[in-house]
């Protein structure tokens, strides 16, 4: 197949040639098409196989009824429509890296400006005597499968050499072709790369009960003609196995022959050496996928190959893209009907790592979690028998999410059958949902908010779950979750200047130690900022660094109230509310308030928060008023701020017949401790001296009620437009415990709440939060 005569034209555009048209090579072309590369380059693809790229991950489905067309990655029209020339059954035999041209087997030559090697890998056939006899095969291409199928018609038995992932996949195929199947593995267990000893042994048992004979720790010395079958495989231990068909699946080797011929740098054990942008030792020649050797590693999975394709495409076109930074090699699959999963450090090689293990020989399941020494992070996992635990574990692993306090619950069976899941809300926006196409939770959210309202539509737009398909269940959950959230809030961006939530900005400020709005804007935002992001960032900076908010670099972020330490009223004058901690005030201070009010002709009112409000001060009077108030020890009560307002209190045990504790002193201590703390929204506290609750603590963000045994702490209550009764958080606390708990709760709130989100709403938005 070719469209080359139609499409290769004499143009001035430089020639971009891709050698290899497997899944990664095809993905690279898709990336080029997406980036509009044909405007800058004439693009040509040469593929060795007779067909255009097809889905090799699902190769075995060719035996269960799927045709090439079902497995094809695209229609030929995709190439035509994107101005991409292709030729199949075209073998490139030489590269002249100095003259920058390539030669095909038929002698034709093409010069190139950029060359991409996506030559993939070839199956490794161990150099056993007799390996090249008739009726021996490998398992990689549709041609291989056609040949196997043909041979299987006259065969009764089949043997796979290699008990790794692909070997077992191939064994399954032979079994489905009706052959009595055996697997011969050199290592002491099946899937030695992914599984530990216990997992490998269990898998072996399960496969054996399905009628597949498994030989582990078995080395084949030679293959000769058999007596009762076509072949006899002789083993090092003196045994032998007779079989009609032999299929080698003992690993892959990078297809680097062209690179060697062109004298590009290759690894000692093969693989074309590439840098973080997939460039080989020749700047204009790139290598991607299984033929590429990055930091001494070959990536034999499709997802890393796709990442490389993307990186290389962006690099060639001069777009600033991400570098290739390696890939996660976690896998889950169903082999011969058995679930197998492997994540991260499955072999517990991390020093001082600890593990949780669950094994059930009745149900044939085995699950192991490898965790950090302190038990807070998941380092790896092995699953055999039931992969329903995989998605959750993988997310914990990939995103470094802190494990729950009883991590074993993640692998223990639960009575209703559904394993303990990680709430979708708990996943960070950057969580990779589909690793094949590198689609994050945020990508999905954005796709939905820009109009894709169904799972199918999201799949079509993002390509999520169209690679290996392993993420389909998780994808559905994420889509459902996003759709559910839709209508409530679509974009969580704080404003047009920052594509971040308040929580994101908080973390950026903290982690990057950003001290000013300008610094944050330069690094993570755009434009000049607005009335939404300025005060929000000003608030975050104050929360994190506690800098004086009226410093030159901060003053323009402050609302007028924060800037002048008073509340602007409808006529443009201000009201002044000095802080009166706990509502306790001396006669002398009361007199000064009266004198100031009289002097400046201010209207006075006792507030709901047990303080005194002085209304009607002009901007120019404010400095004079404050001078007089400060002189007797007053400070601003921040009646305007997104910060601690008042701590309301009853008079407590000193005076009250019913009081069981000194609520007055506690209220004053609390107010003095937390005053000035900048938070996402205002914070109101109260302390009651007994359960009669005169201070109405249960309608406050932080409410404290004295008991015979200490203090009861209520949190996240609210008066106002939508009242919410506070939740009892802890009982009978000592003074010290009370303060510790309030500290922690406020820290969590300040770190994680949205802009202008009161604690009541924040609490309800949290995973597992109380809802009414």
């Amino acid at each position, binding site marked *: 197949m070719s469209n080359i005569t139609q499409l290769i034209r004499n143009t001035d555009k430089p020639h971009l040639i891709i050698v290899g048209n497997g899944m990664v090579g095809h993905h690279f072309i898709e990336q080029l098409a997406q980036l509009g590369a044909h405007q800058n380059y004439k693009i040509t693809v040469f593929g060795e196989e007779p067909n255009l790229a097809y889905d090799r991950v699902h190769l075995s489905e060719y035996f269960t009824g799927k045709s090439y067309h079902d497995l094809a990655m695209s229609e030929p029209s995709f190439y035509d429509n994107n101005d991409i020339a292709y030729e199949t059954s075209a073998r490139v035999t030489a590269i002249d890296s100095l003259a920058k041209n390539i030669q095909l087997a038929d002698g034709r030559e093409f010069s190139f400006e950029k060359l991409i090697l996506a030559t993939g890998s070839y199956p490794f056939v161990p150099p056993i005597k007799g390996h090249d006899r008739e009726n021996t095969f490998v398992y990689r291409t549709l041609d291989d499968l056609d040949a196997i199928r043909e041979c299987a018609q006259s065969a009764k038995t089949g043997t796979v050499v290699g008990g790794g992932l692909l070997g077992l996949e191939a064994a399954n195929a032979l079994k489905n072709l009706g052959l009595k199947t055996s697997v011969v593995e050199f290592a002491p267990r099946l899937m030695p790369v992914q599984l530990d000893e216990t997992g490998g042994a269990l898998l072996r048992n399960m496969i054996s009960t399905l009628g597949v004979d498994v030989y582990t720790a078995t080395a084949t010395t030679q293959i000769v003609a058999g007596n009762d079958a076509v072949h006899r495989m002789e083993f090092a231990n003196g045994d032998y196995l007779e079989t009609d068909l032999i299929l080698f699946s003992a690993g892959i080797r990078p297809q680097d022959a062209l690179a060697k011929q062109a004298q590009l740098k290759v690894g000692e054990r093969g693989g074309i050496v590439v840098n973080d942008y997939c460039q080989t030792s020749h700047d204009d020649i790139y290598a991607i996928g299984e033929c590429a050797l990055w930091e001494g590693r070959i990536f034999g999975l499709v997802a890393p190959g796709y990442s490389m394709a993307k990186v290389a495409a962006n690099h060639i076109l001069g777009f600033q893209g991400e570098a290739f930074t390696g890939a996660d090699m976690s896998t889950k699959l169903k082999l011969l009907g058995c679930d197998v999963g492997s994540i991260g450090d499955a072999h517990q090689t991390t020093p001082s790592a600890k593990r949780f293990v669950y094994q059930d020989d009745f149900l044939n399941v085995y699950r192991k979690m490898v965790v950090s020494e302190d038990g807070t992070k998941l380092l790896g996992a092995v699953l055999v028998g039931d992969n329903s635990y995989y998605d959750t574990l993988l997310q914990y692993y990939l995103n470094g999410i802190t494990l729950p306090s009883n991590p074993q619950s993640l692998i223990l069976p639960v009575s209703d059958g559904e394993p303990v899941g990680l709430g979708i809300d708990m996943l960070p926006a950057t969580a990779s949902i589909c690793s094949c196409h590198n689609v994050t939770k945020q990508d999905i959210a954005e796709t939905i908010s820009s109009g894709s309202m169904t799972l199918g539509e999201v799949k079509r737009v993002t390509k999520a779950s169209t690679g290996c398909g392993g993420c389909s269940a998780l994808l559905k959950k994420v889509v459902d979750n996003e759709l559910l959230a839709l209508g409530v809030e679509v974009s969580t961006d704080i404003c*047009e*200047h920052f594509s971040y939530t308040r929580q994101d900005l908080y973390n950026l400020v903290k982690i990057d130690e950003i001290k000013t709005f300008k610094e944050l804007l330069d690094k993570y935002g755009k*434009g*000049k*900022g*607005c*009335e*939404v992001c*300025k*005060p929000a960032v000003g608030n975050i900076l104050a929360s994190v660094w506690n800098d004086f908010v009226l410093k*030159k670099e901060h*003053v*323009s*972020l402050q*609302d*007028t109230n924060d*800037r*002048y330490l008073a509340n*602007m009223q*409808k*006529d*443009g004058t201000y009201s002044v509310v000095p802080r009166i901690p706990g509502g306790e005030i001396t006669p002398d201070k009361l007199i000064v308030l009266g004198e100031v009010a009289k002097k400046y002709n201010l209207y006075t009112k006792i507030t709901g928060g047990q303080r005194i409000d002085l209304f009607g001060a002009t*901007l120019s009077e404010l400095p004079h008023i404050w001078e007089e108030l400060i002189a007797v020890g007053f400070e601003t009560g921040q009646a305007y701020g997104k910060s601690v307002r008042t701590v309301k209190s009853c008079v407590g045990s000193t005076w009250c017949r019913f009081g069981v504790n000194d609520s007055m002193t506690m209220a004053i201590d609390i107010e003095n401790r937390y005053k000035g703390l900048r938070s996402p929204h205002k914070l109101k506290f109260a302390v009651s001296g007994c359960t009669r609750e005169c201070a109405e603590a249960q309608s406050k963000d932080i409410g404290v009620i004295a008991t015979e045994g200490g203090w009861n702490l209520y949190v996240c209550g609210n008066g106002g437009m939508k009242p919410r009764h506070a939740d009892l958080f802890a009982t009978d606390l000592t003074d010290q415990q009370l303060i510790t708990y309030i500290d922690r709760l406020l820290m969590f709130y300040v770190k994680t709440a949205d802009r202008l989100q009161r604690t009541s709403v924040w609490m309800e938005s949290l995973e597992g939060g109380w809802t009414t």
Partner: protein
Amino acid sequence: MSWIKVCSYEDLVANAGIAVKVMDKQVAIFLDPEFNQLFALSNWDPIGKANVMSRGLMAEIEGVLTVASPLYKQKYCLSTGVCIDEDIVLPIWNVKLENDVVWLAPK
């Protein structure tokens, strides 16, 4: 055009406003420090009905630099005075900076 000297550069606040009284009228002057660009418009908030515009936050909305009323948050384009939320326009003034001195002239 008769220019009136109103204050010095030091009196201005970067990315924020100040108020001056000129010809018996209050004028809000804003400074965008990026190119030392000055904007002058009436300090009177026609919706809140108070002389408060100089105390609003400067806000860039889709590339247009505005000031948001500190009372009811309507935004006015700093260079034209056009309100982007309501059908209303704030009077604007000519403003220039010469040798660290700020000059105003009525439009």
